């Protein structure tokens, strides 16, 4: 076995060890280290459009590059992770700080199930407008970037929730609004 093989083996072993320790430590929040610089346009990636809140209180798009993933669900997860991270320019975030995306899957009928932890609810400021912008930034971002997503069902810790903060009805999946219409409400 040559050196590079050994090196690879060592790398795999240490990665497994790290993952194992991470698991033993339990469900502590995974420490994500953001890249020092935003990826340059030359780097490979898929351009996606995220919806954040404008100065005027409507949803507006911001373009990002996300690493390509083998499935739409994994890519959609990347997109929502970016949405949670928040806007780059003079826009406002739509998802409360500390929110964790637990799972995202797309069923055969094109319903995307998006599962958040309770922080999504407990850290949300509430209000019809606030709730509306939060929910539709998610629904529209997914609908806009993934033609296979026809509707979006929000879940909280794996369960259905009647509403986020007492306004929009989340018992049924929501349809993205006209896909290319940028200004809303």
């Amino acid at each position, binding site marked *: 076995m040559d050196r590079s093989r050994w090196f690879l083996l060592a790398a795999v072993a240490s990665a497994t060890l790290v993952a194992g320790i991470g698991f033993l430590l339990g469900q502590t929040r995974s420490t994500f280290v953001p890249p020092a610089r935003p990826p340059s346009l030359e780097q490979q990636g898929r351009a996606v459009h995220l919806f954040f809140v404008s100065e005027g209180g409507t949803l507006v798009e911001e373009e990002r590059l996300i690493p390509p993933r083998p499935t739409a669900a994994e890519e959609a997860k990347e997109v929502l992770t970016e949405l949670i991270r928040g806007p780059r320019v003079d826009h406002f975030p739509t998802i409360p700080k500390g929110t964790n995306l637990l799972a995202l899957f797309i069923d055969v009928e094109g319903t995307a199930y998006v599962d958040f932890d309770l922080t999504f609810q407990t850290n949300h400021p509430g209000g019809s407008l606030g709730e509306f912008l939060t929910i539709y930034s998610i629904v529209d971002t997914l609908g806009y970037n993934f033609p296979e997503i026809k509707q979006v069902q929000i879940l909280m810790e794996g369960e259905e929730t009647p*509403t986020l903060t007492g306004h929009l009805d989340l018992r049924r999946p929501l349809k993205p609004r006209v896909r290319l219409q940028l200004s809303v409400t």
Partner: protein
Amino acid sequence: MRTQEIGGREWLSLRQVAEAVKAQLEWDGRHRRYLFRLPPASLIVTPGHSAILLNGRTYLLSTAPQLSGAEVLVPAELLQLALEEIYKRKRIRWDAEKRLIQVEERDYSLRGLRFHTYSDHTRVVLDLTKPLAFSWKEDPSQIVLRVKEGVLAPHFQRQDLSDGLVRSIELKQRLKGVELSIRLEEKRGPIKVFALKGPDRIVIDVFREGAWQLAQPAPAMEPTIIVIDPGHGGQDSGAVGPRGLKEKDVALDIGLRLKKLLEKRLPVQVLMTRSEDLFTPLQQRTAIANHAKANFFISVHVNAAMRSRTVGFETYYFTKDPSDSSARASVLQENLAVNLEGVGPKEQDNYLKLTVTDLINDVYRDESSALAELLLDELDQILKVENRGVKSGPFYVLAGAAMPAVLVEAAFISNPLEERKLMDETYRQRVAEALFEGIARFKARYEKRMGMTLGGRSG
């Protein structure tokens, strides 16, 4: 195979399921989930999470698998789902008593449960994917409906309704089918159960006492009933301002001021969905209004946004999708308006009635949007802050209101300036005055359009 009944559900242990499908069970510690090895099929179950991955497809169980002692319990329908998938989508029936698995070409499923409270009846709808045999038994306190085959689609368990007719609705997945129990109030009229097509569904209508005898109520004799719904309450504070002012308190105060104004100046009856700091479920708020056959429903809120400078007021009415109402929808609405009076328990036009009542929100949409406009207009004149316009969307508290219904967001409590304004009693009074003016104008218009006096003042 024995199932355990806990909390009204049937459970199997994961090991039982693994044995039944002859799979090897593995714990994937890294992802905290169980893998079933039964090539070529695959099944992944995560304790605490109701989603399972079966041959790459995601299914939602009616509830999340749970740890119980050393065992992982899963809802009983997992076995059926797993067998169906493994045996190439052929339909499977597991007979618990005979310990027999039958593989059949049968297609079934219950997709969901809906219900609506209307002024003279409560409708419960079970959505199916194909026609299914069912039977039911009724006694004074409940009706139990059995759908002979079928796996219950996820997330429907028990719902408290307490709308004066139906106390609660419960769905249980049995190994041999699905059981729907509807607990009823003793004082009620007849019950109708029937199946409809396109899409297939089973409908249960519970009528109010005397509903069949009622002709069109003589509107001139009835006072206008206005339901005021102060948002949030109790453990639900609603939005909280930077200085700690709570939406629930502001909404209640404005609501009570509005009630006072209405009762003093108009011949109306005002009902509050809450008149103290109490938690009131959203469903109950609309149910109160429907039960009282209210003429208008006003939900009073104050707004919040993550951008703290956001300022102003807005009003909302119900639409299924938040986009502006499409041309197609308004055509539909005109056609339906004529038929609305036909809502009643005549058997031959059941289908029509269902269409009508399913779209009841559409029927009230024009009125609701008109009321929303008037309220906005008055707020604009009296408050002189940013007018953010009339909007629409799938608002829970407005869904199913059988009357014009509007949600008012009077100011942004998340904005420090507006929070300070809301702390001032005179400002809250001005908001109430504006809402009063809007309601008064709407009532006058409404009565003129209906060609009658709802208030009975001219009587």
